[in-house]
């Protein structure tokens, strides 16, 4: 029992770890502004600090507390995002702005890094080893311009780093929100619908064929294997058939026929004791009809 409990707890722990890791891996560095100009956004201390924008591309809430931001590949734990802070949760497909003021003690949303042209900013998982995402700041990026990852279609959440410097868009997702719907894209790429029809039929067949194969493998094949020897046993061979025919010829009363039928039933249901030419010998199978123990009444437990 204890072993089972330990196993269950271990499995739960592993599952929880897996879920956390999977969630954190949905984060990306979507935008970095290394050198703000006079139009830049003010931080909580009234300064125009550089900033790093982190986006949650998943459809669930992700807690990025305990993760790290760094601009040094050899020091992945450079700036810790505080753990156990309720405000470190980022909603589905939402962004959060971290001020890269160079002093992480200024608050939860302040990192101890200074983004500069030519540097790469890394987002590191809460294990301190796994790099979740990175974004390189191009050399010669003008002041007031940011480096971004853009999505061609924000519904798909597939981001690519932009080559060109972009106009900063702090705290808002970067990407095309008015792109063509899937149906509109399909109308262009497959106007007659043949591709979709063929692919869809193939997928339906595959899904159901896999089900068929699995159930054939798991159950039908085993059932057929079990049935084969039973069927073999249940078929009287030539000698047995001859013995039955002789017995039926000799006997005339209904009782005799009933006895032969009962014997045959037992024979066909594997109750044969041994095989002798011309004889059908049935093993005695006690029914327990006179077993006194079966007649005892069960008393309720106190």
């Amino acid at each position: 029992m204890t072993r089972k409990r330990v196993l269950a707890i271990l499995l739960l722990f592993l599952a929880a770890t897996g879920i956390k890791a999977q969630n954190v891996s949905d984060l990306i560095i979507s935008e970095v502004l290394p050198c703000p100009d006079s139009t830049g956004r003010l931080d909580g201390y009234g300064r125009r600090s550089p900033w790093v924008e982190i986006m949650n591309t998943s459809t669930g809430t992700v807690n990025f507390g305990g993760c790290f931001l760094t601009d040094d590949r050899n020091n992945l734990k450079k700036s810790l995002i505080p753990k156990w802070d309720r405000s470190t949760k980022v909603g589905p497909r939402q962004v959060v702005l971290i001020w890269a003021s160079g002093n992480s003690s200024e608050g939860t949303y302040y990192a101890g890094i200074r983004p500069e042209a030519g540097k790469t900013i890394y987002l590191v998982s809460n294990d301190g080893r796994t790099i979740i995402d990175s974004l390189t700041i191009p050399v010669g990026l003008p002041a007031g311009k940011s480096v971004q990852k853009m999505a061609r279609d924000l519904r798909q959440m597939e981001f690519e780093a932009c080559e060109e410097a972009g106009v900063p868009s702090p705290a808002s997702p970067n990407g095309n929100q008015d792109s063509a719907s899937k149906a509109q894209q399909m109308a262009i790429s497959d106007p007659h619908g043949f591709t979709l029809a063929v692919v869809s039929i193939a997928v339906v067949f595959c899904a159901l064929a896999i089900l068929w194969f699995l159930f054939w493998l798991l159950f039908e094949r085993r059932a057929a294997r079990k049935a084969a020897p039973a069927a073999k046993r249940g078929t009287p061979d030539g000698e047995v058939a001859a013995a039955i025919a002789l017995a039926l010829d000799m006997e005339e009363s209904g009782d005799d026929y009933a006895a032969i039928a009962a014997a045959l039933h037992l024979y066909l249901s594997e109750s044969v004791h041994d095989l002798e030419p011309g004889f059908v010998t049935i093993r005695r199978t006690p029914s327990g009809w006179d077993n006194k123990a079966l007649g005892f009444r069960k008393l309720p437990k106190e």
Partner: protein
Amino acid sequence: MEQIFRSLAQFWEYTGFANADWQNLVMIGIGLIFITLAIVKEWEPMLLVPIGFGMIVGNIPMFPGLNIGVYEDGSVLNILYQGVRQGWYPPLIFLGIGAMTDFSALISQPRLILIGAAAQMGIFGAYLLALLFGFAPNEAGAIGIIGGADGPTAIFLSSKLAPDLMGAIAVSAYSYMALVPVIQKPIMLLLTTDKERRIRMPVPRTVSQKEKIIFPIVGFLITAFIVPSGLPLLGMLFFGNLLKESGVTRRLAETARGPLIDVVTTLIGLTVGASTQADKFITVRSLLIFGLGLLSFVIATMSGVLFVKLMNLFIKNPSKKINPLIGNAGVSAVPDSARVSETVGREIDPGNHLLMHAMGPNVAGVIGSAVAAGILLSFLG
């Protein structure tokens, strides 16, 4: 006195008589026909009575702005209609279907599952035809699903892909489901020979409880991993079946297949009927949808029957041949299409019972249409 007349005149403007339109009267007439067919002919009364009455409710001419119509935000009918609009009635119906479906026929003869896949060709045949008639791909997908012969799936998909066409699609799907015996029989007779109709299939083996419990779990995992977009339907279908087969959740299963499905069927029927308001329903596009829906049923039935004939070409053992009359049951109108197989089979050979065999492809059709809906949703949603 003048004040009284003025009030009466004002009241007259609020009555249905003053706001009546010939289109409303046509729709009320169609609703009455549905109710008559359900009561006199007993064609799918559980569906046609609520839909028929819903049509009458939705087409009572009224003065706009009273906040009582199905399309007016916050009205009682509108709140009930959200189950259709947002697509949360169909999964609840699938929960009930799962809790009342016995998959034994399918588990004992897994090869019959492929017939359920073949019959889904009706969906994609109708999709191609709808594109040909100028419908947009998302609308064509929603129209095509009528061929799955599954009302809840049709409502679920059309609410996601083409909400404007949902009324026509839902009514078309349910109408043709009620007409399954009329549509399928001539096609089955046309495509089969007398010898094929007399094929007797071996008695299916007994299925153990363990197999019945494993089926919904394995079935769900495989289908949901392949088509995650079908999750609401597939998840509820297999969950309902697990409740039934687990043997330890009898009360939950009974609720799902009893009171729950009854309540949701009543609401879905009434609100779908009410959504067919004349101005939105009596259009050329609705007529086209009805035509395409019929064609999709025909293609689905033909595909199922012809696929069985194809399978028979590869089955060498004569005792293991499949009667093509069960091919029609690949559409998921449970259990009506299986009953058609039984009826037509017994007309030719009174001792040949095909119902048990036809239930295999029939329940496979339910899975197949949910998978097909998931695929269409992922491509066009």
